[in-house]
């Protein structure tokens, strides 16, 4: 397959800009910590140490990165296709349910079982993305509203299914664990990283080749960049919207699976959905830092995975709640939303 160096990885200047945004987010986060008596320096030192200090830490960072690179895809592929799919949360919950069902309740022979559970997750996730897509195509319903509504409905539906149908007998707080034949192989004993990361990265790469190397992907990007030129080029708008949503749903579903059949020690879904919740929204920041590019998203996911894992040590040592990392994530998104900030900065430094 001839794909010339059409790789859109960030070149030097965009890379610096993204890094600067992250530093800006950290600085504002520090400012927010100070009034409450926390020491940002201690916090950030623990953050770094927690993320990269030892090999198990590094592996753990990658384990956190795995779902994030996937939940970035609904948003980033959506933007490429000209829409705002922020339904990764709900699509992920359903993916987790799908994986739990097949992995925990459906005994299958060794290789097949894992593949089936993974496929089920992707299928469920895509199915949950289907209705908002159709609503947009047929009724013009804006996807920001519909996907959020679906996120909340998925939360209640998934909790209901997890508690009433998939619960592990005797342990009310989580579902049946994945059977041994449906677990991704673990790397080492002292981290939660599994081979699921390979599948995640593979999906990102496949999406990249799809968007830039196939006719359908070209048409999707064209529809997002200039819908009228897309019509001129004979692109079917509805088909583009549908595929965009389905790709996102599949990826989010896989993210859900990665937390069930790809994450020890629980190998199951918490009844509160605690091991999947908010990963979808975090994915938006990952997508933006990765410049809405599937491969950029992988790199950004590693960064955010580092923040997430390091955040736990930060909480333990410096007392700053690990959720602050999410707050910093949000600040980064806000900053990245404003391109003029960069123009202002550039102009000032050029003088």
């Amino acid at each position, binding site marked *: 397959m001839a794909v010339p160096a059409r790789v859109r990885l960030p070149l030097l200047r965009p890379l610096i800009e993204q890094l600067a945004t992250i530093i800006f987010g950290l600085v504002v986060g520090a400012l927010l910590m100070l009034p409450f008596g926390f020491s940002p320096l201690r916090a950030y030192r623990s953050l770094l140490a927690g993320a990269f200090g030892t090999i198990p830490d590094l592996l753990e960072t990658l384990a956190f990165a795995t779902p994030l690179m996937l939940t970035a895809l609904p948003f980033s592929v959506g933007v490429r296709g000209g829409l705002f799919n922020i339904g990764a949360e709900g699509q992920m919950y359903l993916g987790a349910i799908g994986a739990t069902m097949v992995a925990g309740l459906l005994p299958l022979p060794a290789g097949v079982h894992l593949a089936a559970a993974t496929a089920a997750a992707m299928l469920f996730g895509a199915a949950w993305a289907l209705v908002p897509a159709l609503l947009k195509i047929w009724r013009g319903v804006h996807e920001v509203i519909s996907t959020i509504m679906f996120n909340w409905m998925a939360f209640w539906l998934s909790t209901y299914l997890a508690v009433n149908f998939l619960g592990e007998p005797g342990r009310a707080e989580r579902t049946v664990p994945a059977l041994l034949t449906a677990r991704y192989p673990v790397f080492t004993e002292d981290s939660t990283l599994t081979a699921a990361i390979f599948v995640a990265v593979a999906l990102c790469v496949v999406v990249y080749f799809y968007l830039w190397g196939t006719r359908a992907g070209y048409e999707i990007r064209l529809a997002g960049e200039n819908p009228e030129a897309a019509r*001129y080029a004979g692109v079917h708008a509805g088909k583009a919207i549908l595929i965009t949503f389905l790709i996102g749903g599949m990826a989010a579903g896989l993210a859900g699976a990665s937390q069930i059949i790809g994450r020890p020690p629980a190998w199951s879904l918490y009844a509160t959905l605690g091991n999947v919740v908010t990963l979808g929204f975090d994915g938006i920041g990952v997508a933006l830092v990765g410049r809405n590019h599937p491969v950029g998203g992988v790199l950004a996911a590693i960064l955010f995975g580092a923040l997430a894992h390091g955040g736990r040590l930060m909480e333990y040592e410096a007392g700053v709640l690990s959720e602050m990392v999410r707050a910093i994530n949000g600040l980064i998104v806000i900053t990245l939303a404003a391109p003029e900030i960069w123009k202002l900065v550039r102009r000032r430094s050029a003088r």
Partner: protein
Amino acid sequence: MRDIHKVYADGTVALRGVDLHLSRGEVVGLLGENGAGKTTLMKILSGLLRPTRGEILVEGRPVDFRNPGDALRVGIGMVHQAFTLVPPYTGLENIILGQEAARALLPPRTGAARERVEALMAETGLAVPLDDPAESMPIGVQQRVEILKTLYRGTSVLILDEPTSALTPVEVDDLFRFLGGLRATGKSVVFITHKLKEVLEISDRIVVLRGGRVTGEVTADRATPERLAEMMVGRKVVPRVSRAPHAAGRPVLVVRNLGVAGDRGAPAVRDLSFDVRAGEVFGIAGVEGNGQSELVQALTGLRRPDGGEIVLEGARIARLNPLALYRRGLGHIPEDKARFGLALTFDVAENSILSRQAEPRFLTGLGRLDWRRIVTYARELVEGFKVVTPGLRATVRSLSGGNQQRLLVGRELSKSPVLIVAMHPTRGLDIASTVYIRELLIGIRDEGAAVLLVSADLDEIIELSDRIAVMYEGRFIGAGQAEEFSREEIGLLMGGITADGGARTSAPTSAPAAD
């Protein structure tokens, strides 16, 4: 205005040290081709933009305009090329916006305002329906509202940016008469245009810009079209494209009783019938807004017709989608390249296959794009059609308008179409690209293709067409061989005025196509 420089944020230099002065009761024509900097200069004068360097003096005092309101307070107002009216607001509401004569939390004083506006209308002779929404008004009337809006604020300097582009020749005369009246009352006018004839007609003094600099300044009585053209373009005469007579062949496109609805449901094209034959250029003249866009969209698969039929090379195509049409030999140069024909943030190579991405030539198995072949093809396009670009991976947005259009036209022509539909192909382009693209269209006609040209630029129609029709309110009110029409006749037809005796009809000039 003294030593005005303007550099945009992305680095484009628009103005390089321009001096301009304006006296009371004077009409100054600001002449230049597209991209010379005329609009930028006037946007600075009217307060919409700020100069990177230089100063503006009003009555000898330096001023600093931070927004249009500041300029309006001093008496300078601008009527822009793209209208700045709020579509659902009425004529009166648009005129008084920003001048409501009441404090923020109180109701606007429309009663008193109406009286003032009516007085103004009587004084200037410009009549507009005050209670109709702006979006329902024809373009000529909207322009009058814009002018009233500026005059309502007591402007003494009126700037008009390309005011005649959407007017019929009759409306242009009315406008010029009005401007003469303004001059008589001591007001000043700056008239931006690229049309030599008009600027000679209306101006007292003409200032010519090229490449952001003043290349000449001359009083109207001492100016000649050749001198102006030289100052404008650097050549003595604006080159015209030569068109040798060419025998037309069989009908390639046959349209019968075509009806197309506009966006609001009202018919935009009514019962239209015509042919376009191989080896000829069929030019449709007319002021924008008379159904041309809808007609072209119906012919190119972007809008479904309500009735009638369209036959291309013997096959009915009325409801086919664009890709099917391209496969049957259609090439489409859309009316707005950036809006319809190109993806600005994509690079040159990706744009070269826009609308050709489904062709097997550019694909390998499983729907994958064959980038090696695409790159080769893009390189051929760039070289063959003289597209100036830093490389195939440059984003198309970074190309100049002329080069963007060359890329687009080249792409369409390289499809070896049997029919080219070209709408406003050279609008907004620099002279060199304009001439080149017109030559390309004649070239493909000489090779036997059928060309349907739709343009509001009368010169273009006359220069290029073998046969001409004038479109007005969805119908042809005049059609025939190009030689049969005088320029004035076409001008009148564009305004809806048919010659008495009704010698001109909209009947097609060839037999209906057999099916």
